[in-house]
C-alpha cells in the first residue's frame, strides 16, 4: 500500500498571521519508526507547524499526507482519530478524573448500558503495563507527578491514534530520572513503528534520542539532517542562523566604564536559575545570550523580583537591598520590559498615554495621581523622543505595530527615570527598521549612564550594543565575554562548548 517509508509528510505548508508569515512553504517528512527532532528558536514556527499538523490551526496552503493519503484534520480530536496524537508540555488531560477514566474517556467499556468500571480499570492497568507504569489507576490523575501524567497522556494518544506521536516539549518540567523513563518509552514506541516528532530545546536530549533533525528559522525550513552527521556547532549555527566562518565585527565605542553600582552575589532561585554572581557598572550594557530555556528570562525576572531569589544578596552602591517583589525593585529604580509584551507588557485596551504613565503612577502610589496635564506632557515627550508612531496619544495601544508597542513600554519605564533597566528580547517580533531604532535607543540610554541588562536571541545585536555578554546554559551562567572576545563567533562557541562538555 505504501509507496514510501514516510508515515507523515507535510508539503509546502503555509500559515500567515496578521503581520507575520509564521510558516513559509515548509516541508517536513516523518518516517515510520524514527524519532524526528523539530528544532528552532522561539518564533521559528515549530509550534505553528505542529498546530497545523494536528488541526489546531487551519493551514493557509500546502498538503498533509498521512500514510500516503491526504488528510485535513479540522481539530485535534479529529487528528487523533486519524492517527496523529499529540502530547504537550502542559498535560492536556483532566486532573479531576481517575487515570483510567482519562485513558478511556468517551470509550469506556460498558455492560448493560453501565460503565464497567472493573473492566475499565483492568484494561487501564494492562495498557500502562506496556509503559512500565504500575500505578493505582483509580486515583485522580492530579495525585500523580507531571512525569506520570505525561506517560498517561502518551498512552492515551498512542492507544487512540497509533501512527504518529507528537511530543511538544515533553521534558521541559521533568527531572533527569523522569526523562530517562520517558525516553525508554519513546524507544519502545519507535520499535513498534510509530513515527515520533520530538520538539524540545534541550540539545543533548536531541542527540540522545533522535534519528533525524529538522530545523526551522523565521518560519522557513533550514534543513533536515541525520543526527549522526550533524555536530552541535553546525546545529546551533542552523538554529541561530549564521555561519561560524563569517564574522562580523561591529565597531563599538568602548566607553569608559562608570563606577560599579550593582552587585549580585550567589543570587539564584531553585528550579529557575542557579546562583550566579553579577556586577553591573553605570553606563554599561550587559547582554544575556543562550538558547531558549537556558535561564536568560529567569535571570531577568529574578533581578526584577518577579520571582524572588532564595539565595544570595543584592547590593546597590555597597548597600544591601531587598528585591523580593517588582514593587521593591521599582523603588530602587529598576525597570523591566518583559519578553512577551502581549501578555505581560501592554494593556491593549488602554491608550498609549495610559500605558506610558502606568509604571510611574504605580511608583508614586495611587493616592498621588499624576495630573492629566502632566500625563499628556509625559506621553507627548516620549512619543516624540522615541518616535512612537501613533495617530495620537489616546489611541488604544493594541492598534499600534509591534515595534511601536515595544517603544511605548520602553517609554513607560523611562518615565520612571530608572537607573537599572532590564530588557527581555526588546527586538522580538518587530520589523527590521524598528530593530535599528531600538538598538540606537539602547546605546543612547547607556551613554546617559544607565545600567542595562539585555536578553536577546539576536547574537549580532548583542555584540553590537553590549559591553559584556554573559552566556547561559542549563539555567546557569557559564561564560562571560568582553573586550576582544566579545564576538558572535565566541558567543556561539561558548554556547556550543558547554553543550559538548556536558555530553562528554
Amino acid at each position, binding site marked *: 500500500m505504501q509507496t514510501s517509508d514516510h508515515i507523515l509528510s507535510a508539503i509546502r505548508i503555509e500559515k500567515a498571521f496578521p503581520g507575520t508569515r509564521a510558516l513559509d512553504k515548509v516541508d517536513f517528512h516523518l518516517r515510520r519508526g524514527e524519532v524526528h527532532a523539530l528544532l528552532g528558536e522561539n518564533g521559528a514556527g515549530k509550534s505553528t507547524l505542529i498546530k497545523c499538523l494536528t488541526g489546531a490551526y487551519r493551514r493557509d496552503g500546502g498538503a498533509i499526507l498521512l500514510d500516503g493519503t491526504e488528510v485535513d484534520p479540522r*481539530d*485535534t*480530536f479529529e487528528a*487523533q*482519530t486519524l492517527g496523529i496524537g499529540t502530547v504537550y508540555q502542559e498535560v*492536556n*488531560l*483532566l*486532573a*479531576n*478524573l481517575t487515570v483510567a*477514566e*482519562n485513558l478511556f*474517556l*468517551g470509550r*469506556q467499556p*460498558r455492560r448493560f*448500558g*453501565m*460503565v464497567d*468500571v472493573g473492566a475499565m480499570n483492568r484494561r487501564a492497568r494492562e495498557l500502562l503495563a506496556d509503559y512500565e507504569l504500575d500505578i493505582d489507576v483509580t*486515583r*485522580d490523575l*492530579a*495525585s*500523580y*507527578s*507531571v*512525569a*506520570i501524567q505525561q506517560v498517561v497522556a502518551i498512552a492515551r494518544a498512542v492507544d487512540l491514534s497509533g501512527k504518529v506521536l507528537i511530543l511538544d516539549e515533553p521534558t521541559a518540567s*521533568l*527531572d533527569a530520572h*523522569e526523562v530517562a523513563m520517558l525516553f525508554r518509552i519513546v524507544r519502545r514506541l519507535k520499535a513498534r513503528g510509530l513515527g515520533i516528532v520530538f520538539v524540545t530545546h534541550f540539545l543533548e536530549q536531541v542527540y540522545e534520542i533522535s534519528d533525524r533533525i529538522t530545523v526551522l528559522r523565521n518560519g522557513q525550513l533550514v534543513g533536515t539532517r541525520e543526527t549522526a552527521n550533524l555536530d552541535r556547532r553546525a546545529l546551533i549555527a542552523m538554529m541561530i542562523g549564521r555561519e561560524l566562518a563569517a564574522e562580523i565585527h561591529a565597531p563599538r565605542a568602548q566607553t569608559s566604564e562608570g563606577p560599579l553600582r550593582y552587585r549580585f552575589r550567589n543570587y539564584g532561585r531553585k528550579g529557575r536559575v542557579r546562583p550566579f554572581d553579577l556586577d553591573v557598572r553605570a553606563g554599561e550594557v550587559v547582554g544575556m545570550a543562550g538558547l531558549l530555556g537556558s535561564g536568560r528570562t529567569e535571570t531577568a525576572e529574578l533581578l526584577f523580583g518577579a520571582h524572588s531569589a532564595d539565595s544570595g544578596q543584592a547590593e546597590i552602591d555597597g548597600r544591601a537591598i531587598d528585591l523580593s517583589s517588582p514593587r521593591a525593585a521599582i523603588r530602587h529604580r529598576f525597570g523591566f520590559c518583559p519578553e512577551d509584551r502581549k501578555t505581560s507588557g501592554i494593556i491593549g485596551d488602554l491608550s498609549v498615554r495610559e500605558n506610558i504613565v502606568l509604571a510611574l503612577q504605580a511608583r508614586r502610589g495611587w493616592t498621588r495621581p499624576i495630573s492629566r496635564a502632566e500625563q499628556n506632557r509625559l506621553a507627548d515627550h516620549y512619543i516624540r523622543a522615541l518616535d512612537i508612531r501613533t495617530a495620537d496619544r489616546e489611541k488604544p495601544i493594541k492598534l499600534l505595530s509591534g515595534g511601536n508597542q515595544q517603544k511605548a513600554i520602553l517609554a513607560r519605564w523611562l518615565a520612571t527615570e530608572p537607573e537599572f533597566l532590564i530588557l527581555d528580547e526588546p527586538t522580538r517580533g518587530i520589523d527590521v527598521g524598528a530593530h535599528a531604532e531600538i538598538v540606537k535607543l539602547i546605546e543612547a540610554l547607556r551613554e546617559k549612564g544607565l545600567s542595562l541588562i539585555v536578553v536577546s536571541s539576536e547574537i549580532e545585536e548583542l555584540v553590537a550594543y553590549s559591553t559584556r555578554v554573559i552566556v547561559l546554559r542549563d539555567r546557569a551562567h557559564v561564560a562571560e565575554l568582553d573586550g576582544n572576545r566579545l564576538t558572535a563567533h565566541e558567543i556561539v562557541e561558548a554556547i556550543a562548548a558547554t553543550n559538548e562538555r556536558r555530553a562528554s
Partner: protein
Amino acid sequence: MKPKYLPLIATLVIFLLGYALCVAQYPNILSTRVIGNLLTDNAFLGIAAVGMTFVILSGGIDLSIGSVIAFTGVFLAVVLEHSSIHPLVAFAMVLAIATLFGAAMGAIIHYLEMPAFIVTLAGMFLARGMAFVLSIDSIPIKHPFYATLKGLYVKLPGGGRITLIGGLMLLVFAVGILLAHRTRFGTNVYALGGGTATARLMGVPVAATTVRIYALSGLLAGLSGIVFSLYTSAGYSLAAVGVELDAITAVVIGGTLLTGGSGFVAGTFVGTLIQGLIQTYITFDGSLSSWWTKILIGLLLFAFILLQKGIIYVSRHRRQPA
C-alpha cells in the same frame, strides 16, 4: 485514603455528630418516626438538589429550580381544577415542560456561550412569571388521586413511615449515583467540570452533555415540583422561593466543589439531611427562631468552603515531588 473522599467523609461525620448531639438532648429524635419525617419533609429539596449536583459538577449553576417547582405546583393545581385530566397525565405534561425548559437553558448556555448564572437567572424570572400568569392565588388540590398517593407508605419498625415522596427521593438519589459514577454521561459531566476546553480536546460531546445536564436539572426540578404539590396539596406561585439556594447549599455541604469537577451525589444526600436535621432540632426545641437554621447553615457553608480550599491546597502540594 484518597483526598477526594475527604469532604464526603467530613459531611457524614458532621451529620452523625450533629445527630448524636440532638439525640443527647432530645432522645426522641432517635426514632424511625423522625427519620421518616426527615425524608418526607426534605424530599422536594433532595430531588432538586440531585439535579443541582450534576449542574455544579459540570461547573455550572441553575438558579431556576425554585421557580420551576412553583410553576409545576401551580400548573398541576390549575390543570386538575379546570379539567378532567388525570394527575398522572398532568405529571407527564409538566415533567416534559420542565425538561424542555432546562434543555433550552442548556442550549442557550452552550451555543450562545452565555454564563449559566445569567441564563438560569432569566429562567428563574421566566418560570416564576409563568406561574403568576397561570394564577396568583394559592389553589388547593382536592383530587382524590392525590389522597391515594399521600396514603402510600412503607411502615418502618418503631412507627415511622417512608412515604411515597420520601421513597421517591431515595430512588432519585440511587439513580443519580448510578448516573454520575456508572455512565459515560456521568464521566462527561465531571470532564466538563475539569475544564471545558480540555474535555473538548479529548472528544467529550460538550454541546450534548451541557444540554442534557440542564435538561436533567429541569426534569428533577419538575419532579420536585410534583413532590412539593403532593406535600402541600396546593399550588402557589410564591411557593419555593429560594429553594435553588438551599439546593446549592446541600450540594456544597455535601462536599461538591462549587467550581465543578469534584464531588458526589451521595454527599448531596447527606447535605440535604443536615439541613433537615437542623430544622428538626429547632422544631423540637420550640423556643428557637427559625433563623437559627440559616445562621447554622451559613456557618457550615463557610466551614466547607474552607475545608475544600484546604484539600485543594494539600493535594496540590502532595504531588509536587515527582
